[in-house]
């Protein structure tokens, strides 16, 4: 998946906005949005919020976790923990990027918040890289990916699954392949260990 496809999935998460207009509900294939009453807060999908904000039809109320103190705490926890800490939102990076990108005026201390979220992301990415390396080196059978968000999991695609595919391919016998490539029915190692094996 490309990052913008992951973003598309993340855009379905709900955020609270304060509309500046009145409107009857809007009916979409994916569900209804509204009705809108000016100054009455309402929860809408992120993509709706971003579109309304761009037309200056609403104010976006930042999610609870988008708060400097809470994020500082989260960052320390992420640093001191060997495994991944649970993030306050499954799409924290997407929400941060879109909300901070279009509604900087609705959020206090935008720059600090942006920096600290990027710090948390960087810490997690470097953890992810070393655990990938570890997993391959130790030939581990599985790895726990608890608490990773979709964007983070997607960042190790396609490299990790492809590398695992290739290791599997090196590990498993290639007998079957050498048969197919030139259409012989015997197998090399068999024919070498006992000359009486069937052709």
């Amino acid at each position: 998946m490309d990052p913008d496809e992951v973003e598309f999935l993340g855009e379905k998460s709900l955020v609270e906005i304060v509309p500046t207009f009145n409107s009857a509900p809007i009916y979409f294939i994916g569900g209804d949005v509204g009705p809108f009453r000016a100054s009455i807060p309402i929860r809408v999908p992120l993509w709706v919020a971003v579109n309304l904000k761009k037309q200056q039809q609403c104010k976006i109320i930042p999610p609870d976790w988008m708060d400097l103190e809470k994020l500082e705490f989260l960052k320390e926890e992420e640093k001191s923990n060997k495994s991944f800490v649970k993030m306050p939102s499954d799409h924290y990076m997407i929400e941060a990027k879109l909300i901070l990108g279009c509604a900087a005026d609705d959020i206090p201390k935008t720059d600090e918040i942006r920096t600290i979220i990027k710090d948390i992301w960087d810490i997690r990415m470097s953890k992810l890289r070393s655990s990938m390396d570890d997993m391959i080196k130790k030939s581990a059978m599985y790895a726990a990916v608890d608490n990773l968000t979709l964007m983070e999991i997607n960042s190790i695609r396609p490299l990790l699954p492809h590398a695992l595919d290739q290791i599997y391919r090196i590990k498993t016998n290639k007998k079957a392949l050498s048969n197919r490539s030139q259409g012989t029915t015997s197998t090399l190692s068999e024919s070498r260990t006992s000359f009486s094996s069937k052709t």
Partner: protein
Amino acid sequence: MLSTTSYQPNYFSIDDILATQERTPCKFLQNAPRMGKLNPSTDEKDLKAGTELELPLWLVLDASAGRQMIVAPELPKIYREAYREILKADATAVDLHKFNLYFYELGSYVKYFDRREDVHNILLHTFITRFRFIMDLANNADSDPTVQNRLDMLERRLFKSGHIARTKLNTWLLDSGAPLKAANMVTNHRKRKRVDDDLFA
């Protein structure tokens, strides 16, 4: 369009055909009438038992298979002990491309020429040890394009797909919105055309 699936050789795969074209040493166990032309160092019409030659892997595989072997295959030198020791010492320092462009693929075919599992083990060891190196190369968005010259075909594929994904993620992190783009082939076609036009202007 870049393939999203991992390399999996099949009858039509270009890389598998080229890997099986690599020359492999072998020794003829029987006379082969009229096959003297396989041996460039003689003008004789027939090929005599006992002749040692380097032949393409596809022929060695076929001729050594089955109940009656026509040739006895031998390990190419890059999989023999001296080279294995180099890889054991520090696989990341090796220019694998110089060993062979199809190091893993060729290795997976010829590992059966040796009854011990030494070749099998060194393939696995090399891949696992070099993984971090490839991952770091791919993650380094503006890495020097010549670095991939030290990779074998399989590693190059991993590097490329990883690098493309990484570049997309970095663009996403930095940019406000992903613009729609011309198709890959179209862009490349136009670039080439511009070069051609410049050449013939």
